[in-house]
């Protein structure tokens, strides 16, 4: 009999009942996590090696990691780095992720730091397991560890390879019982050293992602697929006007619907619960609710948003950051000024928020795709007043999650309803609800001024940003999730929010960067709630800053690549991550791959309907740097913009899986292209009016570039250094795209677009205004 997680849990005295027939899940590595355990669910001990790695008698290993994979292949990457340290074949491994009762709390996902921060404890515990196994082999084979060789899970005597023992023979079916040290999961370690870059064999290869086959043959069990005996279906009924107060509910309007179970309401939170899903949908539509509109408008209409933001008194203005003497701009020969605007943009997840909560056995189990499953567990425990060890979140795959989505909100709602009804309840948001009420990336206005000397050198730069980000929501907070707001269990003080400054390594001798947060009139119970969306501020801020660098290059009659390189080489100091040197490397690599010919913008316009141009932009995030070049076609008759080609040069340090990284970078680029060309949350003075894929357009197949070149760069000054680290690789790519496209449109047309998105009507109006 082979040892599995279940055996360990049985051994530890926990009653475990196997979950019924889920072979696909077993294949996917989720079988153990899906078991129905009676509870309670204490935290796995991160200081025990057995919490991280299980090796079976057949020589296969399962890694238990407290992260979630949102479709970028992090699970595959974790298997690679851990298999490499353990010296076991990649295809003999599997990975269980993010379920709070069986994996240590590594926080789930966020910040694109899965490898940058969380990869290290994984590598160290795998190295420790290898060390312990070698010691066991030493005893078994009667030779010192130094006389042993290990390869793909087989330990042999170097001088006599016929003497060998497998990992499965050494530990299969048994516990390691090895205690680790470390203050927290991030610092967890044994005593074994990790390998140098040169010793890694699986890192740097591109095994195919293990999650893809079950995603294309229909066998993957997603969080939306879990069915439990006696489960009910719920739908929310949201206030029709933001900030409305519930007056009364006419339950008789739905009582006759077959399968109707109950209307649940508390404060301004209203949900209907039915036996079947289509019944719940019908009941939510049919329920008569009397709402009282708020006394004053919750927000200005989207057409008036930027006027409102510029006039608003800021709720927060931290001291500006200042380099040199900002007044030096007075000595400039040429002063350039520009204002940029980015609207609210939503997650608008492809699959609306959902969660299934099971209150059986006086516990609460939530099946969810929330990327911070541990936070959901803690938040629900606090919100419902249930001891933490009686709540668990079983993380399963779900739709697109690029930050603080509504998936957590739906998890709380399912748990609340399950507790009320004493039966498993599945909550599913509608498309309209998701698009209107999910969290938004904050809207920005940015004012930039720059001064050039007679030689076209940038001598002073002034940046002043305003973000509509008051009450920026955290993740899974028991006192700020939507149901806590609607049930009047919210915190007293809204979160302060923030506005960001650009991330570049330009040497500008005199520079001031100021930021302000502004608030819309309605702060709570509003669909215009802000939260982290795939680099929470980067696309907005970089649109402004990197468009403006291009405007300065135009004023200096300089080539935009050369203008940027001059600003980077003007400095000499570098930082710990060598970001200045690596910024130069990615810009040069992108220009070379693109075949960039040095000239100033705009290019001379042709006579035809299609105008073509190219634009570059660059940014960093933490230690990852990226340069993007867009080649566009602008139709001067229709205003349609098509990015025909992208070149992206990207440096994220040590790369684990180049092919999976390339895919993630292609997709991140196109997500930001969608934000550049299409996405804007529209609203009137009562409600969000962007509620589906017609009123909230997104990028489609028709917009897809003909070609995307991803150039993976290692610009480290010592590229072969044995300690080259992994940097985060998810979100940096999303930052420069909006500016690269705007700069390319300017190059093609001579018209500068300073307002996102560049929908055809806006582009056409700008072209007409400039008589293009």
């Amino acid at each position, binding site marked *: 009999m082979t040892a599995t997680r279940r055996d360990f849990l049985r051994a530890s005295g926990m009653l475990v009942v196997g979950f019924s027939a889920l072979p696909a899940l077993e294949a996917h590595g989720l079988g153990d996590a899906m078991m129905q355990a009676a509870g309670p669910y204490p935290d796995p001990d991160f200081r025990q090696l057995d919490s991280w790695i299980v090796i079976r008698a057949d020589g296969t290993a399962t890694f238990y990691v407290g992260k979630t994979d*949102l*479709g*970028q292949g992090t699970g595959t990457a974790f298997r690679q780095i851990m298999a490499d340290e353990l010296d076991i074949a990649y295809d003999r491994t599997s990975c269980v992720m993010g379920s709070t009762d069986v994996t240590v709390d590594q926080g789930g996902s966020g910040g694109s730091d899965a490898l940058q921060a969380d990869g290290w404890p994984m590598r160290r515990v795998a190295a420790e397991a290898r060390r312990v196994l070698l010691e066991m082999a030493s005893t078994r084979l009667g030779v010192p560890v130094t006389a042993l060789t290990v390869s793909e899970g087989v330990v042999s005597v170097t001088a006599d390879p016929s003497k060998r023992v497998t990992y499965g023979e050494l530990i299969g079916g048994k516990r390691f019982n090895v205690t680790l040290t470390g203050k927290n999961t991030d610092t967890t370690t044994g005593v074994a050293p990790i390998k140098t870059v040169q010793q890694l064999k699986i890192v740097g290869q591109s095994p*195919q*992602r293990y*999650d*893809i086959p079950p*995603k*294309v*043959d*229909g*066998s*993957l*069990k*997603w969080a*939306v*697929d879990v*069915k439990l005996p006696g489960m009910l279906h719920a739908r929310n009924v949201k206030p029709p006007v933001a900030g409305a107060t519930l007056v009364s509910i006419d339950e008789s309007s739905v009582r006759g619907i*077959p399968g109707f179970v109950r209307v649940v309401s508390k404060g301004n939170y209203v949900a209907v619960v039915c036996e*079947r*899903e*289509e019944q719940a*949908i019908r009941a939510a539509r049919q329920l008569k609710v009397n709402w009282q509109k708020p006394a004053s408008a919750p927000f200005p209409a989207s057409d008036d948003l930027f006027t409102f933001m510029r006039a608003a008194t800021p709720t927060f203005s931290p001291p500006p950051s200042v380099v040199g003497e900002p007044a030096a701009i007075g000595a400039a020969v040429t002063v350039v000024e520009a204002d940029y605007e980015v609207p609210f943009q939503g997650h*608008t997840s*492809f*699959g*609306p928020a959902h969660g299934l909560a099971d209150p059986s056995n006086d516990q609460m189990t939530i099946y969810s795709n929330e990327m911070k499953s541990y936070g959901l567990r803690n938040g629900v425990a606090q919100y419902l007043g249930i001891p933490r060890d009686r709540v668990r979140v079983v993380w399963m*795959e*779900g*739709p*697109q*999650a690029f930050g603080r989505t509504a998936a957590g909100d739906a998890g709380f709602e399912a748990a609340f309803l399950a507790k009320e009804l004493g039966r498993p309840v599945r909550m*599913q948001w*509608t*498309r309209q609800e998701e698009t209107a009420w999910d969290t938004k990336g904050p809207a920005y206005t940015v004012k930039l001024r720059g001064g050039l000397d007679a030689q076209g050198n940038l001598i002073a730069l002034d940046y002043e940003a305003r973000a509509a980000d008051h009450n920026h929501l955290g993740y899974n907070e028991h006192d700020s999730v939507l149901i806590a707001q609607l049930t009047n269990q919210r915190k007293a003080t809204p979160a302060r929010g923030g506005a960001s400054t650009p991330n570049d390594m330009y040497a500008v001798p005199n520079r001031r960067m100021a930021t302000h947060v502004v608030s819309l009139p309605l702060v709570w119970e509003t669909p215009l709630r802000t939260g982290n969306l795939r680099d929470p501020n980067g696309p907005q801020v970089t649109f402004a800053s990197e468009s403006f660098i291009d405007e300065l290059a135009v004023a200096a009659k300089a080539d935009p690549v050369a203008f940027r390189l001059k600003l980077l080489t003007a400095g000499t100091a570098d930082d710990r991550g060598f970001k200045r040197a690596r910024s130069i490397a990615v810009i040069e690599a992108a220009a070379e791959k693109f075949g960039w010919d040095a000239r100033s913008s705009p290019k001379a316009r042709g006579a035809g309907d299609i105008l073509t141009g190219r634009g570059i932009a660059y940014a960093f995030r933490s230690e990852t740097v990226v340069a993007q070049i867009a080649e566009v076609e602008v139709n001067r008759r229709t205003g349609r913009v098509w990015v025909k080609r992208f070149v992206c040069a990207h440096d994220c340090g040590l790369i684990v899986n180049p*092919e*999976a990284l390339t*895919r*993630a970078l*292609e*997709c*991140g*680029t*196109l*997500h930001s*292209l*969608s934000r550049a060309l299409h996405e804007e949350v529209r609203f009137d003075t009562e409600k969000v009016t962007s509620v*589906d*894929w*017609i009123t909230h357009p*997104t*990028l*489609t*197949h*028709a*917009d*897809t*570039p*003909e070609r*995307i070149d991803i150039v993976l760069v290692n610009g480290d000054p010592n590229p072969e250094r044995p300690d080259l680290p992994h940097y985060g690789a998810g979100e940096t790519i999303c930052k420069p795209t909006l500016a690269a496209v705007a700069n390319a449109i300017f190059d093609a047309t001579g018209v500068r677009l300073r307002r996102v998105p560049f929908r055809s009507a806006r582009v056409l109006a700008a072209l007409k205004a400039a008589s293009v």
Partner: protein
Amino acid sequence: MSQITLTVNGKRQTVDVEPTTPLLYVLRNDLGLQGPRFGCGLGQCGACTVIIKGEAVRSCIRPVSAVAGAEITTLEGLAANGKLHPLQQAWIDEQVPQCGFCQNGQILTAKVLLDKNPAPSDAQIRQAMATTLCRCMTYYRVQAAIKRVAKVNA
């Protein structure tokens, strides 16, 4: 409620539901299928796509009563004799999905395209796939995977 008989992936099954119930919920909740998924309920995104009479049908807006007796193919029914459909294999070879939630619609819509036009041009691919949405933006690789199969067909 009424008894309605459906043929799904070659298997005849009878369900007892309201005739107006969208096919999607019957496939998912009564027949236990997980290829078709809820994305919008409005026929706008393609997550719920199934194939009926050679057409890509959005099951979220098709009443179950309207497809009684019809042959319905879902993602689960694409593989034949234990072998993946060439498009599914191309999806793996090209490493197409990110989250994968939309890929049911991408694969089935592509299948209908190639069944009608085995070697479509790039423009035809873009047009045929234009209303099948992906929010991870895997479009570039979806098109590459379709072109892989189209090339073999050409």
